Structures are given as structure tokens and as C-alpha cells.
């Protein structure tokens, strides 16, 4: 303590040099004790074992666009399965010369999604834009009006079907889940019981069995000659299933709200509907953004289960390509491609939710 000097105000005391910079970081994070050092070494060993061969397989020895015969001689990946089959993977059995229609529908969807990201655009007009957009998308898929040739919904498939099931599924399940959560908290015993029974029953069965029921059992109850579109039935099953899970997450958010918020709103003379819409839900839904997005992401991936009722979603069209003798054996490449599509969807959802959370937490 002999050389204790008064630091002048202008000169700040710097941290010891071993704790900053690249070397400091490595020392602190990778080699700060013998166990972490061991883990670091083992990890580096496995990365060296895995990454270079993968890069060689995927990028160096790979075939990108040659026909399938050329792939037989290559040692690397045969990516040409994608360019040769992408139209079937994405559009399924949609008539080949009409595939610009689902393509246009998807472009409209992505433009709308992109536009809706910005919270400043959340106005009434956006809702009308969406309704119009959905109508146009439906028209493009179905046809039969304005000189567009009619395409039966049994021919819809691929990525188009996956997006259809997901977008409608998630946007319909979310509000339904919120209503169910409110119903479960209702003071009216009939409403409450109904919601509890619904939620518990749906959560008690796997999605697969709901899909089976929608596709096999439900038609038995319909009078002869009446059929309800198979896609619609699968869609309904997905919505009903996801809504039950969202309801429970939202209920968690509602229970986190302090009593005082209800009291302050009520003592102002706001009615139940206004209290919920203006005070309670905005706060409760914000709290539960992370678990809600988890459910939405898993619902997006669960749409692939419609395979079992013989709908040709993205995964099924890919499998169909793989059963073509010319492309037999290139499942790794095809599944990586599909995985990338799913990943992009899921990752953008989770990314957006984080952005939204940050924006909404201004007040805290």
C-alpha cells in the first residue's frame, strides 16, 4: 500500500491486461480450470474430425447440377437432386404449367409477412390488406374464377401446403387460445367448465390421433354425399390442437398479472372487455411471448404429421422424390434441403419474437 496514489479524475483505472483482449477471453472462457481445458481440447478434436470431411462432402466433392447418372461417380454430395426436383418438392401435384399461381401466392404471403413485421403498420388497414391478400391467395390456388382454371385441392401439396396449414393454423389458433384462456378464468361456471374440459381433452390426446379422427372418423358422421375437404379437416385439427396449448400458456400470463391492475382498470369504470383488451392482455401476452413462440414453432413443424393422412406436405413430396429410382439413395441431400427450409421458418419466428419483446419492453 506504499505506492497508493490518488488517481486523477481524467485518467480512468484500466482493468488488468490479462482479463481483456483475445488472449484474456480465451483464458477466461476456455482454459479457466483443468476441466474446462479438457473440454476445450476434446471439443476441438471432434470439430477437426467432423467439420473438414463435411465441407469436403458438401462443397468440394459435390455435384451441383448434373443429372443423376453423374452422381453415381461422385464421392461427395449430390445436390442436383434439388434443382432437378424442386418444383415437385415445392408445388406437389399442382399442374406444372399453372405453378406460377402458387408461386405468386407465396410471394404475396411473404410480402405481407414482411410488411406486418413493423409494429407501426399494425392498423385496421393492415387487417383489410390481409383479408384481401388471403382471398387473392385462395383464388390463385383454387382458381375457377376470372378465367383461372380450377385446381382441385387434392392436387395441392409441397411447401405450399405446409405454408397453408401453418399460416392459417397459427393465426387462427392464437386468438382461439386467448379466448379459451379467458374462458377458463371466467366467473361463469358453464363457460369455465366448457373451456377446462376442452383444453384438458385436447391436451390429453396426441396430434396424430386428432388428425386420424379428422380424416377417418369425422366423415362417418356426415350424411351421405356430404364431404368436407380433407385439407380443411386437417387444418381444423391443427388449429384445435394448438389453441389448447396456447390457452394454457396465456393463462400463465394472466395469473402473473397483479390484482392491482384489474382494480385500477375497474375503478376507472372500464368494463370487462375493455379491461382485458386495454390493460390485462397487452401485459399478459407480452410476458408469455417466449413460451408462445415455442408452441407456434412446434406447431409449424408438427404440420408435417399430416403425412399420415396422405396429404402431400413438404416432407411427403420430398420422400416421394426419393422413391424415384433415379434419385434413390440421396436422402441426406434432400433432407438437408428440407431441414434448411424448416429452419428458416422457425428461426425467423424466434428472431422476430425476440425483436418484438425488446420493442415491447420499452416501459420497464
Amino acid at each position, binding site marked *: 500500500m506504499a505506492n497508493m496514489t490518488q488517481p486523477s479524475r481524467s485518467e480512468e483505472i484500466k482493468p488488468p491486461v490479462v482479463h481483456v483482449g483475445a488472449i484474456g477471453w480465451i483464458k477466461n472462457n476456455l482454459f479457466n480450470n483443468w476441466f474446462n481445458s479438457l473440454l476445450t481440447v476434446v471439443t476441438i478434436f471432434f470439430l477437426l474430425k467432423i467439420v473438414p470431411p463435411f465441407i469436403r462432402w458438401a462443397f468440394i466433392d459435390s455435384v451441383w447440377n448434373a443429372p443423376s447418372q453423374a452422381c453415381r461417380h461422385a464421392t461427395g454430395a449430390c445436390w442436383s437432386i434439388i434443382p432437378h426436383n424442386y418444383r415437385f418438392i415445392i408445388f406437389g401435384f399442382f399442374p406444372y404449367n399453372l405453378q406460377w399461381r402458387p408461386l405468386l401466392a407465396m410471394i404475396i404471403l411473404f410480402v405481407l409477412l414482411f410488411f406486418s413485421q413493423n409494429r407501426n403498420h399494425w392498423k385496421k388497414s393492415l387487417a383489410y390488406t390481409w383479408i384481401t391478400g388471403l382471398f387473392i391467395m385462395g383464388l390463385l390456388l383454387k382458381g375457377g374464377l376470372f378465367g383461372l382454371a380450377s385446381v382441385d385441392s387434392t392436387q395441392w401439396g409441397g411447401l405450399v401446403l405446409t405454408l397453408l396449414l401453418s399460416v392459417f393454423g397459427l393465426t387462427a389458433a392464437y386468438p382461439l387460445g386467448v379466448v379459451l384462456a379467458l374462458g377458463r378464468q371466467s366467473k361463469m361456471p358453464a363457460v369455465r367448465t366448457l373451456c377446462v374440459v376442452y383444453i384438458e381433452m385436447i391436451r390429453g390426446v396426441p396430434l396424430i390421433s386428432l388428425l386420424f379422427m379428422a380424416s377417418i372418423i369425422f366423415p362417418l358422421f356426415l350424411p351421405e354425399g356430404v364431404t368436407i375437404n380433407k385439407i380443411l379437416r386437417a387444418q381444423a385439427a391443427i388449429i384445435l390442437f394448438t389453441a389448447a396449448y396456447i390457452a394454457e400458456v396465456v393463462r400463465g400470463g394472466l395469473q402473473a398479472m397483479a390484482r392491482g391492475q384489474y382494480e*385500477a*382498470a375497474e375503478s376507472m369504470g372500464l368494463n370487462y372487455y*375493455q379491461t382485458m383488451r386495454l390493460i390485462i392482455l397487452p*401485459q399478459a401476452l407480452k410476458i408469455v411471448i417466449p413460451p408462445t413462440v415455442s408452441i407456434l414453432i412446434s406447431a409449424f413443424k408438427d404440420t408435417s404429421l399430416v403425412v399420415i393422412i396422405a396429404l402431400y406436405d413438404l416432407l411427403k413430396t420430398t420422400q416421394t422424390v426419393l422413391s424415384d429410382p433415379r434419385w434413390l439413395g440421396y436422402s441426406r441431400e434432400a433432407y438437408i434441403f428440407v431441414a434448411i427450409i424448416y429452419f428458416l421458418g422457425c428461426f425467423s419466428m424466434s428472431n422476430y419474437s425476440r425483436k418484438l419483446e425488446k420493442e415491447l419492453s420499452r416501459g420497464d
Partner: protein
Amino acid sequence: MDKEPSAATEQNLPDELIIEIIDMHKWFGEFHVLQGINLSVHKKERIVICGPSGSGKSTLIRCINRLEEHQRGRIVVDGIELTSNIKNIEKIRAEVGMVFQHFNLFPHLSIIENLTLGPIWVRKVPKKEAEENAMYYLEKVHIAEQAKKYPGQLSGGQQQRVAIARSLCMNPKVMLFDEPTSALDPEMIKEVLDVMIELAQEGMTMIVVTHEMGFAKSVAHRVLFMDFGQIVEGNTPEEFFENPQHDRTKLFLSQILH
């Protein structure tokens, strides 16, 4: 202003009653929390309610705007009897302002939005007018410069003043205060009491549950002492503090005034 307790001396209140409570009882389960409350409040009257914790004073004022439901007796506010009729309850709540111990501002809304919410949705006032009105009341509680901030960014004292302004924006006929300074740090109590005193000087009808005896002395027309769910005694501040009638009141005052 708080040096001259002039307000309390002018006792000529209008005859008109704004609140009438007749033989009101309330139970929490088996617990008889309010045991036969009788209370008439005149327009422009200012009442301070004090008493030990658990005596039912908060429950009493929460019954007045039906945050708690009474089970026997009658409560009439501004000519409307409180029953389970939800329309009447909403009508009364719009006329009765309430300030809570923990402020209960809406954290997801800015200060100005907190203030305009009630007028816009309950009173159907146009947004622009509601905002002008809100700024007027923020000015009044000396906090206009914070209008764009969020509740979490303000101190406790500031939040409570915003809460008072929020109630005032509804143009209430009565203001209820449920221990408005109990959750505040000591240095912030005065700024809130000052606002309440100003409000009193403008002739607002107020019922205040508080232990701030200085406030009671300077602004109250009547001080009520509650214990075990009953109003034990009520009197002008002078009589109440100088000459308490009941032993329980004497004991309470000796504890609180050291």
C-alpha cells in the same frame, strides 16, 4: 399553503349527500370485517379514516366503489344504490376516483396514455381533448414534463401524483385514497400530500385512509377512528385529537403521536 389549516375551519358544507352507507356489513369468509357501518358524506366534505391495521378501513372505502362487495345494508353513491347491477357499478366507478397504496399505474402505457385511457374509453371524449385535459391535470400535480415517459421510469412520489391526476381526469365527484403515502419513501410523502392539500382547497370531496395526522388536522372536516370493523368515533379534527372520547381512540392516538 400547508401552514394555515384554514380549510378545516369552514364547516358550512352543502346539505346534499354524496355517499350514504346504512348498516353495512361485510364478511371475508367467516371473518366479520365490517360490522354495521353507518356513514353519510356531504358534498365537498373531507373525511380522514384512521385506525389500526386490520380494522377494516381499506375494506370500507373499497366497498364504496364495489372493489369489494358488501353483504348486508345499503350503500348509495350519488343517488345510485350499489347492487350487483354491473351497469350501475360501472356508472358509480366512473364518478368515484380511487388512488391506491401501490399506485397501480399501467406499466405498458406512457403517462399521458394512462391519463387519457379512462376519458377516451369510458367517457368517450375525443383523443385530442382528452390529451389536453390530461396535460392540464399533469400540470396540476407538477409533473407535466414527464408526460411521454413510462411509469417504471418515475419515482414513487411521481407515480402517485400521476395516479392522482389519472383519477382527476375522469372528473370524479368523490376521490377515495387508500393509504396513498404508505408505500412511499419518507422524502416523497410531502410532494404527494401537497397535491392532496391543493385538491382539498379546491373543494373536492375526499375520503382518505391515512396515518398522516398532520394532513388530517389541516384538511379534514371529520376524522373517523375505526377498530374491529366499526367506526368507533368521528369528530372534527380539533375535538378528535384534543378530546378523544373512547379509550381505544386514546390508546391508538397515544401510539401514533408518541
